[in-house]
């Protein structure tokens, strides 16, 4: 792989302008400054299905959210129309022009519109409890992810004084305070466990939680063993065999 050092050496071999040579030599020993820049961009323009890749963000993440939001908005609009409520704002949101959501500005404007609809529906539900039986109205439009290397996001920001720090923490606390309690109810509930997942990247974190930290490979090892067993049928254990194992 070409590194900044090797690239500079390569250029120096053929460069004749003394000014350019002096400038390049100044970087000697400080190439880490541009290394981050290069490695960030290699990740950004990679074709891998990784969260750092532009293609993944645009196609796998944001397009799906876009599609789901538009479908949800169409359902919401239909319900509102049938119930005789104003659906103009929701109708205006329904579009097919995903190409407008490729830039930071486009994403910000889509997210603002989606947020406005969520708020509109929330208020409507509060004022008209009869609508609560409509599942479509309980669908929450999800904001699109921000664009990678978004300037607003990559800017180095810091607190200028203690007052700013206090305000920021208090603001976060206000926004966050109801959530932990609602999570207690969520994690006390029962669900369709074929539709609750542990992300592959978080298998070790989940193992530590279950096994108390000392067996952080619990799940990964269990999966490896399981999928390497020769007696599996289509990657699953036959029902008969499973019963025998469970009875032991």
């Amino acid at each position, binding site marked *: 792989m070409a590194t900044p050092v090797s690239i500079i050496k390569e250029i120096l071999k053929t460069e004749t302008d003394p000014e350019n040579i002096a400038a390049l030599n100044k970087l000697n020993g400080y190439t880490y400054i541009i290394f981050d820049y290069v490695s960030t961009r290699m990740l950004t323009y990679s074709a891998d299905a990784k969260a750092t890749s532009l293609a993944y963000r645009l196609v796998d993440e944001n397009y799906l959210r876009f599609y789901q939001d538009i479908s949800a908005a169409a359902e919401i609009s239909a319900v509102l129309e049938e119930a005789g409520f104003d659906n103009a704002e929701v109708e205006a949101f329904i579009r097919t022009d995903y190409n407008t959501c490729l830039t930071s500005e486009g994403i910000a404007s889509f997210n603002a519109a989606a947020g406005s609809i969520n708020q509109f529906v929330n208020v409507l539900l509060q004022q008209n409890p009869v609508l609560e039986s409509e599942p479509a109205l309980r669908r929450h439009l999800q904001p699109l992810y921000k664009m990678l290397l978004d300037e607003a996001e990559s800017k180095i920001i810091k607190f200028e004084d203690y007052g700013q720090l206090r305000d920021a*923490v208090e603001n976060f606390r206000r926004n966050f305070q109801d959530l932990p309690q609602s999570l207690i109810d969520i994690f*006390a509930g029962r669900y369709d466990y074929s539709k609750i997942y542990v992300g592959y990247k978080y298998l070790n974190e989940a193992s530590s939680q279950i096994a108390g930290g000392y067996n952080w490979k619990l799940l990964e090892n269990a999966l490896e063993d399981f999928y390497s067993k020769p007696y599996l049928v289509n990657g699953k254990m036959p029902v008969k065999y499973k019963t025998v194992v469970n009875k032991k």
Partner: protein
Amino acid sequence: MNQLAYSFTELQEALDAGESGSSITDLFGKYAELHAAYAAADGNVFYKEYDRKSIASLKNYLDAVNAIARFIKIFAVPEVYAKDEGFYGIVDGAADKLRDFDLLYNMVRNYITKNHIKEQSSLNF
């Protein structure tokens, strides 16, 4: 084994086959501990510049929220997966609320380590 995420059902099957005796649903039970730590830390936060106890109270609070944020991430799943709406309706919302938390945590830590902790090296923020 290269799936992006495994369902509880799949994980339990694998655990049962290995006879580890562990139950994947035990994971849910761990939240109560994180919540207890959070509730205690939340009740103790106070602001006083250059005050060691105040710094510790902020750190405890942010660490407790961080633990919840890490816990929530365990359940993150790509949008294409068929999800239990009742569960993910709240959990995805929580993940969204916590998305910028890392930034806040780092900003607070940077401010305090630069401006407050000079000789108080025993307090690792």
